[in-house]
């Protein structure tokens, strides 16, 4: 562990974020402390032990400082205007996320720019989660004026500090368009086009599943199916994460290798495509984590250097927390990192513990490794799933052994289908039954696992 400096720095940073949440000190005071420790580090660079201690304390105070400066801290800018939740407010802002439909409502993140109070507009800042009656006309980058009621969301969300509910008769006006990041706008347009391709060529259920698996759009998934995924511990496959990024990276590298492209160019091309895919898939925390890790591994591969997985994982965590310190307290962040950490740390130990005295044939070795990997992730995530979802799924160990390898086949089918849709609708029509059959098999596996005896237990 001593050889993994990123681990210590990240742990110190996380401890600083946790302390910063409760700290009575202001950001200015902590800033000065951080500067003092930076000076110590510069002055004591030659003394290894003292330098290490000073560096860890520096990053501890940096964690607290960045948390206090982030929108997650108590003094969010919108707080200054949030006086009476029963009053209607008019908010002008930018649609910052891909609008999603949930039932009869459209939901998106609104980046506030102005707020109307007492009949005049004044500047405001902060992100809102806007919920309004179904509206398919709004898109990322649109500047809108909404009239509704502000409230605190029931569940903590690091992306939005407030909830704005627009009633059926509420005012919704679009006063500008294409005001967001051009790259994100381009990627979201591709996302919308791919979603329409799935919806027009496949059955309702298959398109809903593939939209979730490939594009991260889960709005159309039936509740019974979502619950089946949660109960069988396979909900991670409908949240785009390392598995999807890994399969995508593998497909891209294989195709580029077949085209005899040199290694360094292959890695650069693969990373560029992965970044595009990450934005198309919604750029959530698991996707960002997986993309950064893929970037580190590909860079090492390009220079023929071996990368230390644990160091890379903690470095990813540090990068993500530097951008959004409040993510440390989010379930998605914790589950994403805990799963990879348990996979890396526990799998070799379990393999040694369970199978060191048992000789397995070459054919059964992959099954053995898969079992150890599934068990290690299950054990690593058990406390978190019990806490957040109040559920324990023993069937998840076996279900993931079947579903995770199958995901590689399903994602490949989905990408081939999309390529055919782009080239020729006729080809897509021929290949559609194959995709339908692949999705049908996945759903059969999941529903079968859900109905198994002692598949899951609900906690009180």
């Amino acid at each position, binding site marked *: 562990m001593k050889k993994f400096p990123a681990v210590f720095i990240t742990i110190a940073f996380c401890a600083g974020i946790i302390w910063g949440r409760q700290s009575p000190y202001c950001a200015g005071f902590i800033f000065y402390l951080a500067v003092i420790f*930076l000076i110590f580090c510069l002055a004591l660079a030659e003394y290894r032990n003292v330098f290490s201690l000073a560096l860890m304390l520096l990053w501890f105070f*940096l964690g607290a400082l960045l948390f206090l*400066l982030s929108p997650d801290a108590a003094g969010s800018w919108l707080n200054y205007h949030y006086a009476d939740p029963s009053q209607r407010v008019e908010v002008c802002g930018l649609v910052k996320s891909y609008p999603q439909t949930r039932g009869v409502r459209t939901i998106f993140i609104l980046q506030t720019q102005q707020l109307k109070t007492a009949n005049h507009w004044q500047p405001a800042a902060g992100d809102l989660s806007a919920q309004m009656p179904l509206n398919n006309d709004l898109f990322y980058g649109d500047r809108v*004026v909404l009239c509704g009621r502000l409230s605190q969301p029931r569940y903590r969300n690091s992306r939005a500090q407030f909830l704005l509910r627009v009633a059926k008769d509420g005012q*919704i006006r679009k006063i500008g368009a294409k005001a967001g990041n051009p790259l994100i706008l381009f990627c979201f347009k591709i996302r919308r086009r791919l979603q329409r391709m799935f919806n027009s060529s496949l059955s309702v259920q298959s398109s809903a599943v593939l939209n979730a698996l490939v594009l991260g759009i889960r709005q159309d998934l039936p509740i019974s199916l979502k619950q089946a995924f949660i109960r069988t511990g396979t909900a991670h496959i409908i949240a785009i994460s390392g598995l999807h990024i890994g399969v995508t990276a593998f497909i891209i590298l294989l195709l580029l290798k077949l085209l005899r492209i040199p290694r360094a160019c292959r890695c650069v091309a693969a990373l560029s495509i992965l970044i595009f895919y990450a934005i198309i898939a919604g750029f959530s925390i698991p996707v960002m984590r997986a993309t950064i890790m893929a970037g580190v591994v590909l860079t090492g591969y390009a220079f023929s250097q071996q990368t230390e997985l644990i160091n890379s994982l903690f470095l990813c965590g540090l990068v993500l927390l530097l951008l959004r310190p409040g993510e440390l307290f989010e379930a998605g962040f914790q589950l994403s990192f805990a799963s990879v950490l348990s996979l890396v740390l526990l799998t070799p130990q379990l393999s040694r513990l369970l199978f060191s005295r048992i000789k397995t044939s070459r054919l059964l070795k992959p099954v053995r490794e898969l079992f150890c990997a599934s068990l290690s992730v299950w054990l690593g995530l058990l406390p978190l799933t019990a806490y957040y979802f109040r559920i324990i799924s023993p069937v998840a160990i076996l279900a993931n052994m079947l579903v995770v390898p199958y995901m590689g086949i399903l994602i490949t089918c989905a990408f081939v289908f999309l390529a055919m849709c782009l080239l020729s609708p006729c080809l897509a029509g021929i290949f559609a039954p194959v995709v339908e059959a692949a999705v049908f098999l996945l759903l059969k596996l999941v529903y079968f696992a859900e109905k198994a005896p002692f598949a899951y237990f609900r906690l009180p």
Partner: protein
Amino acid sequence: MIEMTGQERRAALFLSLMVIAAAGLNLYFKAFPRQKEVFQIEELNAKVNLNLALEKELLSVKGIGPVTAANIIAYRDNYGPFRHLEELKQVKGISEYRYNLLKDHLCLE
């Protein structure tokens, strides 16, 4: 305590310096915020922007019903934004007479 090579130490110090500098700037701009320009938003009884209006706003214009509003949006989706107001006559259901009734309530900017 932590084993770091000289290069790793320099990288860690450089990263720390960048983060402190960014945090310092953030703190400065929060303490002394720039006066943000507040842009004026026209009230509802002003002209409706033909290229940006949602269906609900189009329906607020006297003379545009649900079918006409849907035709306008469909025209916009198929052919792109209106370049001049007279292009509205190309929309299905909008005659010369109807255009003369609507033109004073619509704008393009």
